[in-house]
């Protein structure tokens, strides 16, 4: 089983990200489950959700303590995310411009820039969840066509195009990096 825990802030579409990731996995013949965020989601407050992907029906109903992947919709959520626990072997996938100051295996993508570049900004907030989803799919080995199909079920027409564009760009540009310098 693969367990992915996503950290973001209220308004960033964390739950939708989890849903789209799970749907993409299902399209690949997998079983999947998303775990909810517990609490009242205020814009700007830290929120999280988890996704589980497996080959057989998923029985787990408890929370995610040792995810295989930690996803950050913004690099400044690193501390909160680590505090929530992870597997020793966990990899981090982050919306970040530069390596995170931890030793874990990590993948970064400039999702904010990608969103802004593609005009995916509402009320001053760039839509980073779709590009980050693109990055996750790449890391998990989900073919882009599958992701494209998922996105096509969620949005249509003029709304779909920029989402595919940002997902694509992130899919293509996410890169594995060495852990950055640790803070004192």
């Amino acid at each position: 089983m693969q367990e992915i825990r996503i950290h973001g802030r209220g308004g960033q579409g964390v739950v939708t990200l989890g849903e789209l990731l799970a749907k993409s996995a299902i399209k690949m013949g997998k079983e999947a489950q998303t775990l909810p965020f517990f609490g009242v989601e205020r814009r700007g407050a830290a929120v999280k959700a988890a996704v589980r992907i497996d080959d057989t029906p998923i029985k787990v109903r408890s929370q995610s303590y040792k995810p295989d992947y930690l996803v950050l919709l913004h690099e400044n959520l690193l501390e909160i995310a680590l505090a929530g626990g992870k597997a020793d072997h966990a990899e981090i996938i982050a919306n970040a411009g530069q390596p995170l100051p931890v030793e874990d295996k990590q993948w970064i993508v400039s999702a904010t820039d990608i969103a802004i570049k593609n005009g995916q900004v509402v009320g001053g907030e760039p839509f980073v969840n779709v590009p980050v989803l693109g990055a996750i799919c790449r890391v998990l080995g989900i073919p882009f066509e599958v992701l494209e199909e998922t996105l096509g079920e969620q949005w249509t027409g003029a709304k779909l195009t920029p989402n595919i564009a940002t997902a694509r760009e992130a899919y293509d540009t996410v890169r594995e990096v060495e852990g950055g310098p640790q803070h004192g």
Partner: protein
Amino acid sequence: MKIKDLSTLEYITPGTGACAGCPSTIGLRIIGKALGENAIGFLTPSCAVASMGLTPQTCYTFPALNICFASAGASAGGAAMALDALYRKGKLQGEKPVVFNWVGDGGTYDIGFQGLSGSAERNDDYIHFCYNNEAYSNTGNQRSGATPQFALTTTSPTGKEIGQKNMPLLMLEHRPPYVATASLAYPMDLYRKVEKAKNITGFRYIEIHMPCCTSWRFPAADTIKMSKLAVRTGAWLLWEGEYGKLTLNGVTASLAEGRRKPAPLENYLKPQGRFSTMFKSPDKDKHLAFIEYNIHRELEFMAGRAKLLK
């Protein structure tokens, strides 16, 4: 009284759980300055409770009890009467605290109405504040009895079919010692009304209009701007009443007397995402005209009502 003269007493501490731009905490801050330190509050499930902190921490500095959703009227009424007995019997000494409710429109117009009506009839001794954000905001924006016509909520997904009930008027017609409406846009009017209410014994009701950026879908920065527009368009009326005698206040009085022209309604409604379906509808103009007609009708009605029971 000027802003500068207001007490430094704060009913909240920074770091609340409310949305950025929340009108409820603003309202609490203002009424707190008027109610002062010797007051106890009752809160029903709502944003005001969801955002006050996890036990054992709170961002409210006044003593408060979180009660059940339908309980506001009876709980405040019971507490006030019990305090009365405790002080009379000498079981408590000093000055009896003021009892108040801080309750949403859901807890006032809908599930809490019966208790409040009972309190008003019995003239229970407390101030009920209704912070009216025109929806069940805490559970994610469902329709309430205060939701205006055409507004989208998750339980009125094509726009609410019918207008809100005029709860303040209904309370006025219970003829209790004091009923008032207020707006965050006119904080000193609100302050004055709370001070006045504080010095009255018996059932007092103050409803504060609370544009909620999250449920109504407008930018958080515009909370006070929307409050102002509500009053200036006549969508929200400012008045107070004692034992059923009604007086229109401020902008509302000017509008009623024709001394002031209402602000264009679209300025108020258009920025609210909850009216987006109405604005996209082919019947948009008809609907707008209908809202305008109702605002006008209500204003005229209240102006007429103010002439009765002198």
